[in-house]
């Protein structure tokens, strides 16, 4: 009975996935050596590890949304992974609380080279409302190197996807195409 209802609902729902947005190279904050060469080999298949370094949990809501059916990230070759050992991209949210500083650094070190860091949200880009204090190190780049910064509070799933694609697409406009 449940299977019948499920199939019926799936058929009724149809496809809701939308075309992917373009990478937004303007979100890039640095270019790494070998970037283009590596990407020629790997294309755009990319594995991501997310670390909440002290966010308000608003940014996490949009990461969950990105995994929903409208965005079809699997179809783009983008996958979230449980272990930092398996990934290319570290996606970090929040300001870095001082209590997460050590864990964030360790997660970063655990990712094999080459790796890219995407800072997601106002807090991650600037420290946001929480700033720097006795308990907060402020923005992510105060603690680990950052490649792409996606502003917004929280950034929409589309903006986030543009940032992730910017991290792993070839160079800045005109850089090496």
């Amino acid at each position, binding site marked *: *009975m*449940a299977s019948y*209802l*499920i199939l019926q*609902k*799936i058929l009724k*729902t149809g496809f*809701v996935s939308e075309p992917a947005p373009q990478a937004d190279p303007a979100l890039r904050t640095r270019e790494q050596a070998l970037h283009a060469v590596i990407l020629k080999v790997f294309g755009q298949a990319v594995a991501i590890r*997310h*670390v*909440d*370094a*002290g*966010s*308000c*949990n*608003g*940014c*996490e*809501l*949009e*990461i*969950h*949304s990105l*995994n*929903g*059916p*409208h965005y079809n990230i699997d179809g783009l070759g983008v996958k*979230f992974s*449980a*272990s930092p050992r398996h990934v290319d991209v570290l996606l970090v949210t*929040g*300001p870095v*609380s*001082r*209590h*997460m*500083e*050590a*864990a964030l650094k360790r*997660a970063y070190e655990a990712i094999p080279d080459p790796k890219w860091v995407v800072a997601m949200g106002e807090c991650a880009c600037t420290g*946001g*409302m*929480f*700033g*720097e*204090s*006795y*308990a*907060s190190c402020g923005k992510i780049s105060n603690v680990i190197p950052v490649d792409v910064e996606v502003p917004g*509070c*929280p950034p*929409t799933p589309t903006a986030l996807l543009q940032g992730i694609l910017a991290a792993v697409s070839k160079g800045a406009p005109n850089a090496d195409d």
Partner: protein
Amino acid sequence: MKIGDHEWRLDPIGPHIWRGRVETGQLLALSRAVKDEGGQLVALWGSDDRHLNGGFGIHVALLTGLGLAWVSCALPTELPAYPDLAHIFPQADRMQRAAFDLLGITATDAVDERKWLRHNAWAADEFPLRKDFSPLTAHRLPLPEVDAYPFIRVQGDGVHEIAVGPIHAGTIEPGHFRFSIIGDRILKLEARLGYTHKGIEKRFEGMDIATGARLAGRVSGDSHSAYAWAYCMAVEMATASAVPERALWLRALFLEIERIANHLGDLGYLGNDVALAFGFVQFWRLKEDWLRMSAKLFGHRYLFDRITPGGVATDIDAAGQAELDALASRIEIEVRELKAIYDEHATLQDRFADTGICKPELAAQLGLTGLAGRASAQAWDARTQFPQAPYDQLDVNMATQRRGDVLARAEVRFAEVYESLRLIRGILKRLPAGGIHAPLQPVQAVCEGLGWVESWRGEVVVAVRIAADGTLDRVHPHDPSWQNWPLVEVGVLDNIVADFPLINKSFNLSYSGPDL
């Protein structure tokens, strides 16, 4: 206010909200009287009042038969201490430990004196919420690498520990869980939180009132409207400012939109956690439609910064009302279809039922609150019993269950989705005309207020003290997760480790909220 046989000097400062000061020596008697009546401790926090009257303060928010009582005691500057309340209200334990970490005020004779919010970012003899704490000195200190914390050990043949976190496998907030297990069964779980402590309460100090609303809404982003409203209620009470009626109705609209968004997401994840990916995809499709509607009508997917001191920032027109009403009707039909599938799905029912049980008696004893509380027969919902405007005109139906398991928490979510959709349609029909914002009355002297809002997770309380110059002097935002985390630890006992993610998700508690 009469509690037990005693008349306590508490005065009403808002609908169902009371304020009073007692001697430290009376705090125990008052707490016992509240407990004997079937009440609860909702929040406990401290304050540095030395710049005002030469001492410290300890504050409790108690849920009584007549509403929420905010009671304070003055403590001396030297060795500030108050009697331990955790032996009456176990939920006070972590709040007391946090009050010590942040202010150096002690709960005398408390059983558990371990640190709570403090890891390694400041020293044991530094207290960040004291006004003379120098954040700059602390900030420059290099952090000690290791943060020792004495977990409670379970010993015996075949017992071993699994340590999880602070970083978890999925996209969730950071926290550490220490499981003691035998085979696959959980004998004990102890959580260690505080990883996302980012100094929010200190940050409020000296901030202007308008910016404070933005910060309050970011204490726990998934409960943004609840926090922003509770904060605004508190500053409006403090400054004796009136809010236009239409603005209050729009705040309720935002709060119910937020409740539905979170419940839809959780219902999807609960399906996902029992390998029904279909449930995740369907509910997140509906949630996405819901969020896009918020973005289109109100300018933000999560309604951030739409509630402001004195009113709201966004109105809705007739076309918007019709659109929202139509979407609410469609979502209701679809959720009912999905509920029929969840009801019929044997694996899902099998995994949900009798998993992660919090029995009603235990829930009452430990103070389980909010949606999880209602799933364990704790029939409290501030919107129903102690409604603030406009809920006093909305007749909210409370959803309750007695089983206290994952299934019960899912059922409460379903019931609350339907009820919130009904409320939204009612609000849209009856939305009063008029302005949506009025400026606050100017601040003349030190003043205080308290806001109390039933968020989707449970009651959010925000206490505010404003300095004579109109800046914020002390703000304490309280998240319902404070009370409920210890119940997750109890609910997983005797379950298998593999069911932990499901049980945890069925509570879906905030880390950022209580970490502050």
